[in-house]
């Protein structure tokens, strides 16, 4: 009797690895009830150096009680459409569990009815791209229930560009040159030494 149960248990576990196990929340089902603004220097922003000041809060035109379910706010840095072209790993899909638009967390904290501000230094692993800022309101179960973003619905306004760090370092470059030189010199050294030994033996 244990074997069929074991098999069933195994199949259930296996099935849970597939995404269909989780209730899918779609972006189009969320209401845009939050107002989000992002202020920053009006030029190309540098990762690791520049700061963005993000402000968010409930849109006061909505009736009171709209935000009764909101427990947490998650503010994220999201790719603008131009940076998603030919890059399927940044694709926007409606199913939020599969959506790859917003990959960087700016701040996550408890929701308050008053407007909140946060200053964020752009992290050093943010790639070169064009971005906007989006805030999700989460309920007690950590499911998204509402959102707001600093750009319009078509994601064309208020976008900003960030320039990533190169990741290169002078010390790395020098080490690279040294190791390469060692490789070539060692090879030539062996070759010439053996040639000399060979010609000596022939003499």
């Amino acid at each position: 009797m244990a074997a069929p149960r074991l098999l069933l248990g195994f199949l259930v576990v296996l099935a849970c690895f597939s995404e269909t196990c989780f209730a899918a929340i779609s972006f189009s089902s969320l209401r845009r009830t939050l107002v989000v603004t992002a202020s920053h220097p009006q030029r190309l922003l540098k990762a690791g150096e520049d700061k963005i000041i993000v402000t968010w809060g409930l849109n006061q035109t909505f009736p009171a009680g709209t935000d009764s379910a909101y427990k947490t706010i998650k503010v994220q840095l999201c790719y603008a459409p131009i940076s998603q072209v030919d890059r399927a790993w940044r694709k926007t899909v409606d199913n939020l569990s599969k959506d790859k638009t917003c990959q960087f967390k700016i701040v996550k904290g408890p929701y308050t009815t008053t407007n909140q501000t946060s200053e964020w230094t752009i992290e050093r692993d943010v790639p070169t791209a064009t971005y906007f800022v989006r805030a999700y309101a989460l309920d007690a179960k950590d499911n998204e229930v509402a959102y707001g973003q600093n750009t319009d619905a078509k994601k064309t306004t208020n976008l900003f560009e960030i320039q990533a760090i190169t990741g290169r370092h002078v010390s790395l470059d020098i080490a690279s040159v040294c190791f390469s030189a060692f490789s070539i010199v060692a090879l030539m050294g062996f070759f010439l030494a053996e040639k000399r030994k060979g010609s000596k033996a022939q003499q």
Partner: protein
Amino acid sequence: MSDIEGSPGSSMHGVTGREPTFALSVASPMVPTDTTANFDLPVDSEHKAKVFKLFSFANPHMRTFHLSWISFFTCFVSTFAAAPLVPIIRDNLNLKKQDIGNAGVASVSGSIFSRLVMGAVCDLLGPRYGCAFLIMLSAPTVFSMSFVKDAGGYIAVRFMIGFSLATFVSCQYWMSTMFNSKIIGLVNGTAAGWGNMGGGATQLIMPLVYDIIRRVGATPFTAWRIAFFIPGCLHIIMGILVLTLGQDLPDGNLSSLQKKGNVAKDKFGKVLWYAVTNYRTWVFVLLYGYSMGVELSTDNVIAEYFYDRFNLKLHTAGIIAATFGMANLVARPFGGYASDKAAQLFGMRGRLWVLWILQTAGGAFCIWLGRANSLPIAILAMILFSIGAQAACGATFGIIPFISRRSLGIISGLTGAGGNFGSGLTQLIFFSTSRFSTAAGLTWMGVMIVACTLPVSLVHFPQWGSMFLPPSKDIAMSTEEHYYSSEWNDDEKKKGMHSASLKFAENSRSERGKRVASAPTPPNTTPTHV
């Protein structure tokens, strides 16, 4: 044994000539042992080993084997080192899908040319220096990853690192100087398979190294560059080991190699002609592109695929991707073994069927891999795909030695080049465009594998048949001797240049399978004085 036709001892009546192609050892008296030699392994008159003792490091034969395959392994590690780190690299260098795909194509294209040059280098400098030169001169290309700042640089560096895959040639060449030709098939097959494992090992090594460097405190965009120092240092270490521990010949003398004249006595033009005009060559060039070629392509894309499609962590995707390449440990020898077993029962027709079945199964599992929506199914499909494709590689080289005796070297080389070319082609068509996703690319690649494996049914040997046709009924054409001596013209036959081919023809009668009867009694051999 007399040479007079019909005299006692010259008849082939009752001789079966069964000889396994993949043998672990060759016993006397087939190849006599040189008892005056003082080596760890029994050797023949040229001091080449007659026995393949896997877990020994004895100088010089087994030590050469291990130095050789580990060098080849190292070059595979560095050629595919970027693949599991692509999710980080693509953000650092702002790559698009086309750039990633083009870099993958570049990484396998370089070696098409470098492998052709390597043969000449080994002839000039010997395989030990050929291997050492290549592996130590390609170390700077690995280190230059730390300078890359855009797509162009990335593609160029991957192209240059890819040249190092020519160690395949030095590896096989070196072992043919150390191992008797009767066991060289298995020895070379094992070395090739174990070298290919490097493409799998790198998917484990690189994310692990990257993780460690990140924990120490580096940012992602610097950590991946530092990670490349590991394969780079492996190049230097292996190069030094090859130079200090290796030797060109069993007796240690490179100069005697040159004195004996290892230069081919045959004319290169003729050898090339007979390779190129044999249609079977081109069928196998195509086929190898869809067994080895798709293996290389998958090495390049599979880690990124699992990372993106199933939202895995980088090192988890690397572990899964590694199982694909590591299956080479057993899958490729298994393919050779299956081919040999089928040949015992059904002859060459069995070999052809085994190749078709393995490669088509691989294609079918590739289709399944592309369509799998859940992680466990995808992993299962990937493992079955790897076994199918890699066993097909092994099975291919179970057939190649029989296509031609005179042009075996060039045909092997062309087939190998076809593998790299197929890899470049599949990456270009399926994985360099945003028109379809990587999942769809895998599915269509599987379809192309199945389609491009069909031509194996066209390969027909008059003496053995093909997949669907029996051997020729014509008495003259249905002998192995006729097939192999047709590569020589009458002048050359008069000079006796085809004697090695005739000997090979005798030995290849085992490819008739169970049907091996003795050769038909030649006419005019009944002695007159009976």
